[in-house]
C-alpha cells in the first residue's frame, strides 16, 4: 500500500496511475457499460458531431463512437499489454542471461540481437505476420518478438552494471549457484529499469498494433479496434473528423498514461527513495 501512496505523491505517477486505471477499467467493464450497441447502425444520424444522444458523435454508418471506443478498449489495450509482456519476458531473459554469462556467448547473442534490431520493428512484425498469417493474436506475437531485442539490450546493460557489484562477488565467493545469483541477486535489481521500460513499450505496442490494423494485418472489420477505426475513418476524414479524433485521442491518452506511469515508477522503484 505504501508503494501506491508514494506513487501518488509524485505528480507524474498520480496522473499516470489515474489514466492507466481508467483505461484498464474501460477494458474490463467497457462492453457492459457502453450506452449503445457498437455495431448498431443509425443511418439517420451518420457523421453526427457530439450530441446528447451520441456523446462523442457517430461514424459513417451512424454507429455510436463512444460505445465503439469503450468496447474497443478491451482488444486494443489488452492486446498491447500482452505484446509487451511477451517482449519483456523474452527480452529480459535473453538480456540477463547474456549479460551474466559474458564472454563468447554474450558476444554471439548480442550480435544476433543487433542484427534483428537493424530491421525496423514494423517491418519485422510484418515479416512475422506474413509467415504466421493475419490475425489479431499473430499481430501480438509479431510485436512481442519485434520488441524483444530492445528489451534484451536494456536488461543486458543493467545486468552488466549489477554483475560488477560486490554483492554478486560476495554471492560467488560464498559458492551460491548461478540460478540464485540470477534470480535473487541480479533480477530484483534489474527489475525496476525493465518495468519502467515496459510501461513505455505499452504505448509503442498500442501504436504499432494500430498501425498493423491500419494496414489491414491486425484486427478485421467490423471489430472496434482503435487502429482499425482510424484506418477506416480516414476515407471519410473530410466529411467528419470525429471518427478519427475519438480513437486517436484514446490512443494518445493511453500512451501518455503509460509513459507518465513509467516515469513515476522509475522514482518509486528506486530502493533508496523514502518509502
Amino acid at each position: 500500500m505504501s508503494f501506491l501512496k508514494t506513487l501518488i505523491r509524485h505528480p507524474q505517477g498520480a496522473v499516470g496511475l489515474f489514466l492507466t486505471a481508467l483505461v484498464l477499467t474501460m477494458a474490463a467493464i467497457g462492453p457492459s457499460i457502453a450506452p449503445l450497441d457498437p455495431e448498431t447502425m443509425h443511418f439517420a444520424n451518420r457523421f453526427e458531431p457530439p450530441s446528447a444522444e451520441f456523446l462523442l458523435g457517430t461514424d459513417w454508418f451512424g454507429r455510436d463512437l463512444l460505445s465503439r471506443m469503450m468496447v474497443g478498449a478491451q482488444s486494443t489495450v489488452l492486446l498491447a499489454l500482452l505484446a509487451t509482456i511477451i517482449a519483456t519476458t523474452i527480452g529480459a531473459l535473453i538480456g540477463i542471461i547474456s549479460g551474466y554469462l559474458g564472454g563468447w556467448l554474450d558476444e554471439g547473442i548480442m550480435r544476433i540481437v543487433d542484427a534483428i534490431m537493424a530491421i525496423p520493428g514494423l517491418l519485422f512484425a510484418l515479416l512475422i505476420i506474413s509467415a504466421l498469417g493475419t490475425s489479431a493474436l499473430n499481430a501480438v506475437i509479431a510485436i512481442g518478438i519485434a520488441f524483444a531485442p530492445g528489451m534484451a539490450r536494456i536488461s543486458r546493460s543493467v545486468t552488466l552494471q549489477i554483475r560488477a557489484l560486490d554483492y554478486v562477488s560476495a554471492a560467488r565467493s560464498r559458492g551460491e549457484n548461478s540460478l540464485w545469483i540470477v534470480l535473487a541477486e541480479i533480477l530484483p535489481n534489474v527489475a525496476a529499469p525493465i518495468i519502467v521500460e515496459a510501461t513505455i513499450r505499452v504505448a509503442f505496442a498500442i501504436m504499432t498494433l494500430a498501425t498493423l490494423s491500419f494496414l489491414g494485418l491486425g484486427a478485421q472489420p467490423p471489430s472496434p479496434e482503435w487502429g482499425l477505426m482510424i484506418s477506416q475513418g480516414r476515407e471519410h476524414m473530410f466529411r467528419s473528423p470525429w471518427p478519427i479524433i475519438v480513437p486517436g485521442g484514446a490512443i494518445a491518452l493511453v500512451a501518455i498514461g503509460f509513459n507518465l506511469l513509467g516515469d513515476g515508477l522509475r522514482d518509486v522503484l528506486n530502493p533508496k527513495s523514502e518509502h
Partner: protein
Amino acid sequence: MVLEVSNYSLTYGTAAGDVRILTDINLHIGSGEILGLVGESGSAKSSLANAILRDLPGQVTDETGEITLKDIDLMSATPEVLQDLHGRRIAMVFQNAALALDPVQTLGSHVIETLQCHEPLTQAQAETKTAELLALVGLPDHQAMMKRYPHEVSGGEKQRVVVALALACQPDLILFDEPTSALDATTAATLLDLLHSLKKTAGISGLFISHDLGTVADIADRVSVIYGGQIVETAAPDVLFSDPCHPYTKSLLASLPRPSDSRTGRRLSSAPSNAPPPRTGALPACIYSHLCPHHDPQICDTSAVRLRQIDQHLVSCARAEILPQRTETDGALTLVPPKDAQVLMARDINVRFNSASWVDRILRRKGASVLALNGASISLNRGETLGLVGESGCGKSTLARALAGLTPFNGTITLDGSPVAQMDKAYRERVQIIFQNPDASLNPRHTIGTILSRPLKLYRTSLSAQERAQEITAILQRVRLPASYASRYPHQLSGGEKQRVAIARALAANPDVIICDEITSGLDASVQAAIVALLREIQQTTQAAIIFITHDLAILRHIAHRIAVMYLGDIIETRTTATLDHGPYHPYTEALLSSSPSIDPDTQTRRVRLSGNLPTRTTKLQGCPFSSRCQHKQDALCKDTPPPVQSATAEHTITCHIAPTDLAKHAPIWTFTETPS
C-alpha cells in the same frame, strides 16, 4: 583579511522539511594564511566551500549572514560579478582531478583558457605563463606536459595541474576541497610538500577542507573543527592536538591512531553512538549535547552556546573551563598473541589479467596483459591478523579476490596443512571475504535477515527455519546490532552499521579465515575504531585468522600482529607490528610509513619522499620492481638482478639487495618525545 564569514547560516528545503546545513559560521582567513576545516562525513564542510563560491546545489529556504572577500560582499554579488571573480579572485581545487580536467583538452590548454578568460594575453604570452605555472607546481618537462592529455599523466600530476589552474590568476583565496584524499599516501605527501613551498613562495591564502586531521595539521596555520554544520573549535594545529578543548574534538582525536601507540599502549576510543547531529526541528543550545559525556542541562541548555576565546582556543562549549584535561581511554592496547598453528598458506600466487581480445587471438597477436600478482606468498596462523598494505594498484585486492575464489590464479593454497585442489564449497565456507563498500556488497533488495540467512542455508543445512532465525538474532548481537534489524533493508542503516552486517554475514559461516578488503576505508575515524575493536573481539572468541587489507598504516598497530607490504604484485617485506618502531625497513616501507600524516604532538616523523611514477605493469621487470623510485638503489645490480629475500630476524624478511644490517643504519622514521606518565 582575505575572507571573512560572519554569522552565516544556511537552510535547505527538502521533501522531509527544512534541514539546517550551516549554523552561525564565523571565520576569517588572513593574507598568506591557510585555515584548515576538519569534519567527519556529513558535517557540511563542503557546503561551506559551496557557500563561499556562491554555488549552492540545494534549494535554499533561508540564508543569513555575511561573506566578504576583501572588499567585495559575496552574498549580494550578481552572477556576472561572480563569473568574473571565479578563477581570478577565488579559485577551487577539487578532490578528484580526473573529473576536474576535461579529457579532450590538453593540460596546457586548460591553463591557457583560464588565463585568457581573465587577462588580455596573446597566445604566446599565455603559453609562456602556462609553462611557468607548470614549472611552479613541480611538473617535470613542462613543454611536453602542456601537450599531453589528462589520461596520459598520473593522478598526482593531474592534481598538480589543477593546482596550477587555481594559481593561474594569482587569486586572493584558494578553496581546497579534499585535494589529497583521492591520492596514494606517498603522492599525497609530495603534493602537501608542494603546497607548503607554494605557501612560502607564492603566499597563497586558502581554506583547506579535509576529513583527515593529519593532512590538515601538516598544512594549516589554524584548524577549525566542524560538527553538524557548526564550528565547535578553532586553534593552531599543535595546540589543538596537544590540548583539545571541545568534547567533540577530544573524542575525534581519541579515535585516531598515532605512531606512538605501540609504545604508550594507548587504545582508540570508539564513538558511543553514531547518532547524527540534529539538523531538523528546534536548534539545540549546543549542537553536541546529544552525545556529550559532559552534558549538564543546568549549564549547557540555558542559552545558545557560541564560539568564545579560552586561552589559545576558540571553543563553543559552555563548560570548556571545567572539563578534565585529557580523556583517558580505559585499558591498554594489547593484542592477544596468535596460536602456533598454521591455518592458511598461499605460495607463489600469480594473477595476470589478459586483455587480448578474440580478434587478437585470431590474428595470433599477443595482447597486453597486466601482471597483477607476481608470485606473492603469505601464511597465517590461527588467531593471527596479517595487515596487508600497499598503494593502489599494488595487487592487494587481487590477492584478496584470488584467496576468496573470485579470481583465477596460478599457485598453491594450503588450508590446515592440506593443499586446496579447487575452490569448492568447503573451502569457501572456511575462507570468507568482506568488501570495502557495504553499499555495494549488500544487495539493496534483500533484508538484513535474508542477507544473513544465505550463508546459514548454504553451509549449515541442518538448521530449521526457526533455528536459523535464532541464529540470525545471535549473529546480529555479536556485531552489536539489535535483533529488529533483521527486517530492515541496507539503505535504512548507517555506513558503520552496514559494515557490521557485512561482518556478520562473514561470521555466519564460522570461518577460519576472514579477508577484510579495506573495510574501514570509507568510514569516519570513530566508526573505524569501533569496527577494529569489534574485529579484535571476534578474533578472540573464534580464533579466526584475519587478513586486514588497508592503505592506512597507522590503524595496523591496533589490529595486526604482522604486516606484509606489497609493491607491484609482490610482497617486499613482512614483519611483526611490534618491531614497527625501528628499522631495518625496506626503502619502500620507509617512504610509506613516512607519508602517513600524524597528529601526534609527541612524535616527529622523518621525511622520506618518493619521486617518479609506478612502472607499467604489463611487462615483467628484470631487476627490483622498486628500483625506478628507490633512493638507495645501486644502479646496475638493482636494475638487472631480482632482489633476494633477506631475513633480518626470524619473523622479518625484506626483499632487497641491500643487507638488512645496512638498512638498519638509516635514521629512524619516528622520534618520540617521552611524555611524563
